[in-house]
């Protein structure tokens, strides 16, 4: 097809891009205008010509010429810039980020576009490299597609990839000629052999990644970080990895799309069982329960969390979910002959019609029998691959060999398989926590291939373990960048709230000041856990002449300091939440704000965002008002101190009176909430006490709850609800809210079955009220802890609460099930949660304080933000728990003891026991329960495991919910090097 070019003016030519978008079975012809120009600079400091053609942007700034005039020299190449192709970027982004190599790099636009389409996170990292170019590392994007000199038209019968490769070569040729006068060469790094040959024909140097790295002076160190791809290694005779073994091939996109549309293939994300890494589930829309995927071949290289497409297996292969606990550490490949999987190879030709019938059977089967439909993975839509932390399995390496060798890395996440890496430092890295990246999983390899990224330190060292934990939970823990810190007030710690709100100088600095209300006369105090430095909230109560109470909740005015669209705001939005570890806090906002300027410290003036209610005697809201304010907290109490003060009858001052009033009102509020059906769930929360001197963990304690805890909590809930209503009223489409969906009945099926069978109890799911009541009834008179146990187990059956923007759901779905309110948000902790920051801005706009930033009025941006903070919130919780788990392990290292535990799961080959005292749970394997494994009997329908305990004659029956004594000790697993509590039945 002939496409015309038309010259518009000097340096601007227009042409058309015509292509077919084939999406969802359609074929749409798309035509877009495409402008070509001659003013795109090479951005090399050496170049004398481009400086003249560069055009300033809307802010009148000229583009920065970043590429060094004296770039790195290599032996056979000389001074050079590197041009990359998309696969190199996608596979070796870690290497590109390495400060000691790839110093001057040109990224052609076509490569950037392809990277963006294939992996947005990698695109972001590449863009960051370009943005942060400095004297160490310089990356630039060259818009080859828009440059008249480098644009190539697609020729007939040319594939898009060939065309793009040609565009990259053309770019290289242009640069090479352009830079010739300055003695700078261009090297194209690509792993595509054909492309390299064609490039060399054009007279340009082309290298594979390996060849290029070999030229570097520090090649030895860098080689370890090379991505591990089959292409790289086909030449070395790595036969041991390739066995007869072969995973089934993935289906073609056309088949996958067609199958999904005609309802014979299904899409979902895989969840690997936490007890068995060879068993996965996929939740599918038509099925009432997740569909099982059993075994290596059926999982077909899916990782935990991958988006996959599955197809149902024939009825003959449906199975009950396995009752065996397996993890990758104890699973030895060689024992497993895959005997049960060979037979389904020929089971290919099932027509779609038959498949549809199969699906109907499957849905029925889920309702009735114990045998569950199973499926197999036929395609992976999106990989969840990220960097993982693990350690080299000592058995997988040969300590004698010095050179490069293959090693298995066992990951900390036990739902994942081990990863093969090639390294020359295997010996050195033994017993270290290391970070690796996964590169590929060819179908002839039993295990995925990856490469070493960096080491974190000795196993079990606090620093390495903490970093590992943060990495594993995707927590950004690097110090705040300079750009971010530059957004803080210049006064730093000396920042002070203006004494006189109406003084002209103060107003000149902050024109919104007159809109602030002076509440410094109110008797405000804060109540927090002991040692709290980031004080988000403070309260006050005052009797009004009409007998009602004026109650104020004052929240740190974070958005006064964190303005929208600043790097500081972007950092906060990306971190989403502060993360609390046992010995460490990873802040969402820089310390200066969190612990000083925003923190509502006592005795000093602070800016706040206040919610003021008029409440009657019964804690009904008569009136509510929101205002930005200046406050002065009179005292910062810990929960215990506050409790003592309230209980101390000799204290008759106004502040104490106010606190007593708050307590009384909070009790009424709580009662109302419970009457409405709010849930009181439980999680085994423990706190680790640190020895303040040595920072060694001392002892573990279960968190205590005082009345003052609930005092603060009730008013925070009330504030959140009031704010939610107000911002929803002002921004019905984009208000930042939080919802908690009712749990589907199926989640409680197993728990109810257990309760029914063992205790004759049941949990009702009719409403949250019914659920709350039925939980109250689950009482074992002989064991007061039983109720808590049921609550803990129920919590695990609940849905997770989530942040959302108002337009995403209809009003009835806004409901917060656990709190039993129709609408809810987070407003009260803006120092440590980003949702609250958004809520603050929206509320400020709703009361006319300042206009709302566009980002918080744009549904798409809100959607993106909600997804991020939901993810970060979840990760933060997991990280916190993992940290406690680690420290509990450390505590128990010193004190072995016998404790009471409860059986919360029964397997074919073991039981899971929860020890409330330490909040830990662990699997006790059958081999540790008995010497006579074969005689053990498992009855799934009774949740019973019978065996002969060690050293005993009598057979012992262990049922679910049984109270058992367990010996708790901490062991270091020789394979994973993870310290954890090991439980043994007494």
């Amino acid at each position, binding site marked *: 097809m002939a496409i015309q070019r038309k010259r518009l003016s000097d340096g601007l030519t227009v042409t058309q891009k015509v292509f077919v978008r084939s999406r969802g079975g359609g074929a749409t012809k798309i*035509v*877009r205008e495409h402008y070509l120009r001659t003013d795109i600079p090479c951005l090399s400091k050496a170049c004398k010509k481009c400086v003249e053609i560069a055009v300033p942007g*809307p802010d009148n700034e000229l*583009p920065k010429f970043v590429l060094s005039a004296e770039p790195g020299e290599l032996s056979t190449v000389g001074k050079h810039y590197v041009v990359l192709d998309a696969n190199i970027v996608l596979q070796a982004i870690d290497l590109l980020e390495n400060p000691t190599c790839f110093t001057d790099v040109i990224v052609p*636009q076509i490569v950037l*576009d392809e990277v963006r389409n294939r992996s947005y996170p990698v695109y972001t990292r590449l863009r960051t490299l370009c943005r942060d170019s400095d004297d160490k590392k310089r990356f630039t*994007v060259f818009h080859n597609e828009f440059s008249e000199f480098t644009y190539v038209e697609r020729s007939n019968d040319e594939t898009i990839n060939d065309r793009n490769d040609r565009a990259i070569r053309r770019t290289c040729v242009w640069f090479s000629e352009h830079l010739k006068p300055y003695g700078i060469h261009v090297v194209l790094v690509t792993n595509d052999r054909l492309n390299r040959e064609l490039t060399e024909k054009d007279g340009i140097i082309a290298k594979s990644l390996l060849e290029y790295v070999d030229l570097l002076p520090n090649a030895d160190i860098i080689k370890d970080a090379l991505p591990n791809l089959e292409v790289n290694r086909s030449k070395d005779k790595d036969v041991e990895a390739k066995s007869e073994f072969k995973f089934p091939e993935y289906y073609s996109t056309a088949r996958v799309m067609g199958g999904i549309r005609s309802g014979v293939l299904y899409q979902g994300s895989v969840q690997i069982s936490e007890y068995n890494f060879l068993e996965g589930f996929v939740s599918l829309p038509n099925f009432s329960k997740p569909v099982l995927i059993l075994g290596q071949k059926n999982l077909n290289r899916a990782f935990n969390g991958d988006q996959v497409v599955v197809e149902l297996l024939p009825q003959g292969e449906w199975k009950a979910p396995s009752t065996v606990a397996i993890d990758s550490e104890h699973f030895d490949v060689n024992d497993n002959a895959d005997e049960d999987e060979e037979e389904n190879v020929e089971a290919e030709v099932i027509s779609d019609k038959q498949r549809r019938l199969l699906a109907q059977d499957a849905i029925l089967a889920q309702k009735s029998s114990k045998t569950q439909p199973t499926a197999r993975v036929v395609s992976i839509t999106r990989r969840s691959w990220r960097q993982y932390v693990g350690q080299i399995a000592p058995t997988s390496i040969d300590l004698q060999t010095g050179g490069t060798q293959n090693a298995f890395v066992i990951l900390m996440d036990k739902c994942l398989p081990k990863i093969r890496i090639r390294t020359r430092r295997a010996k050195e890295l033994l017993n270290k926590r290391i970070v690796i990246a996964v590169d590929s999983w060819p179908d002839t390899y039993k295990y995925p291939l990856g490469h070493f990224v960096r080491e974190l330190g000795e196993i079990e060292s606090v620093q390495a373990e903490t970093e590992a934990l943060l990495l594993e939970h995707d927590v950004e823990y690097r110090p705040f960048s300079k750009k971010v810190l530059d957004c803080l007030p210049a006064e730093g710690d000396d920042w002070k709230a203006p004494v006189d709100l109406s003084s002209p100088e103060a107003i000149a600095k902050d024109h919104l000041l007159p809109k602030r209300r002076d509440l410094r006369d109110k008797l405000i105090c804060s109540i927090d856990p002991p040692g709290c430095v980031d004080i988000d909230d403070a309260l006050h109560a005052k009797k009004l002449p009409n007998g009602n109470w004026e109650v104020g909740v004052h929240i740190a005015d974070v958005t006064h300091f964190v303005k929208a*669209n600043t790097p500081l705001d972007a950092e906060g939005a990306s971190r989403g939440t502060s993360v609390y570890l046992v010995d460490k806090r990873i802040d969402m906002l820089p310390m200066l704000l969190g612990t000083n300027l925003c923190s509502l410290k006592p005795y000093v003036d602070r800016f706040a965002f206040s919610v003021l209610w008029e409440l009657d005697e019964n804690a009904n809201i008569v009136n509510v008002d929101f205002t930005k304010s200046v406050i002065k907290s009179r005292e910062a109490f810990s929960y215990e101190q506050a409790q003592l003060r309230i209980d101390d009858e000799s204290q008759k001052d106004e502040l104490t009176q106010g606190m007593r009033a708050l307590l009384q009102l909070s009790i009424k509020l709580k009662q109302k909430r419970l009457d409405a059906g709010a849930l009181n769930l439980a999680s085994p929360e423990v706190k680790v006490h640190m020895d303040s001197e040595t920072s060694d963990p001392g002892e573990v304690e279960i968190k205590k709850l005082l009345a003052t805890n609930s005092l603060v909590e009730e008013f925070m809930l009330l504030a959140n609800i009031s704010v939610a209503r107000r911002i929803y009223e002002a921004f019905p489409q984009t208000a930042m809210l939080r919802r908690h969906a009712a749990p589907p009945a199926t989640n409680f099926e197993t728990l109810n079955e257990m309760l029914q069978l063992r205790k004759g109890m049941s949990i009702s799911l009719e409403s949250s009220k019914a659920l709350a009541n039925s939980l109250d009834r689950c009482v074992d008179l002989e064991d007061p802890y039983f109720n808590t146990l049921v609550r803990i187990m129920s919590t695990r059956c609940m849905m997770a609460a989530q942040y959302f923007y108002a337009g995403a759901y209809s009003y009835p779905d806004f409901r917060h099930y656990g709190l039993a309110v129709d609408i809810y948000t987070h407003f009260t902790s803006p120092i440590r949660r980003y949702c609250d920051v958004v809520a603050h801005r929206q509320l400020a706009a709703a009361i006319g304080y300042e206009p709302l930033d*566009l980002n918080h*009025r744009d549904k798409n941006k809100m959607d993106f933000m909600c997804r991020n903070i939901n993810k970060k919130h979840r990760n933060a919780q997991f990280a916190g728990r993992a940290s406690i788990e680690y420290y509990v392990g450390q505590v128990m290292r010193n004190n072995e003891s016998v404790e009471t535990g409860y059986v919360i799961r029964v397997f074919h080959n073991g039981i899971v026991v929860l020890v409330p005292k330490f909040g830990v749970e662990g699997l006790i394997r059958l081999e540790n329960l008995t010497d006579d494994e074969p005689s053990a009997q498992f009855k799934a329908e009774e949740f019973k495991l019978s065996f002969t305990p060690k050293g005993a004659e009598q057979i012992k029956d262990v049922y679910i919910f049984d109270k058992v004594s367990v010996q708790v000790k901490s062991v270091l697993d020789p394979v994973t090097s993870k310290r954890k509590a090991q439980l043994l039945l007494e």
Partner: protein
Amino acid sequence: MSRLEIYSPEGLRVDGRRWNELRRLECSINTHANASDGSSYLEQGNNKVITLVTGPQEPKLRSQMNVTKATISVALNITRFSKIERSKSSHKNERRVLEMQTALVRTFEKNVMLHLYPRTQIEIQIHVLQQDGGLMSSLINGITLALIDAGIAMYDYISGVSIGLYDTTPLLDLNSVEENAMSSVTLGVVGKSEKLSLLLVEDKIPLDRMESVLAIGIAGSHRIRELMDKELRKHGERRLANMST
């Protein structure tokens, strides 16, 4: 998430233009001499618009007659095939189309010397053959050209352009990909002045950014006026040449 960078850090837009560059604008007048009293064909980027003007003529209905001045009517036909996906509806009598018609009538009522043509009607018929963003501005430009071709007295050109705001950067003359990604404003500017005869804001735009948006819009409109003016003069010269031979 868009598959493309709407505005790259290097300052280039999806189609390769810079922030303040117009799309290709090509126009011709007197394209349908047999079918109308004034006509124009305009391509602004991938927008393709035919405008036909009939009149001033006696109104078909007496009720449309005004004894003091001419009345203007605009009939906008957005063809079903004008977008990438063929639309199921013919767009006629759609609320959006009716609104656009009204806005166009209002814009030109003030600029045509209606008092010169009492008791008549000026009918403007527009056919949109293809659209790719900033349609309203192309309609304005097409009408201006067709009215001039019809020899109807006007105070000045009205030139239209759309401007979007991407984060904080104003972008001139949006195509459809850009239009879907940001909020935008359409301007109709009178001649070489800074007078606006049309200002359409369909989404939210922060007030503090409005000034910069208007500034680049007015500059862009002036450039469009120049391009149209050049074409008209060329056309005039051609006609004169044809007459003399």
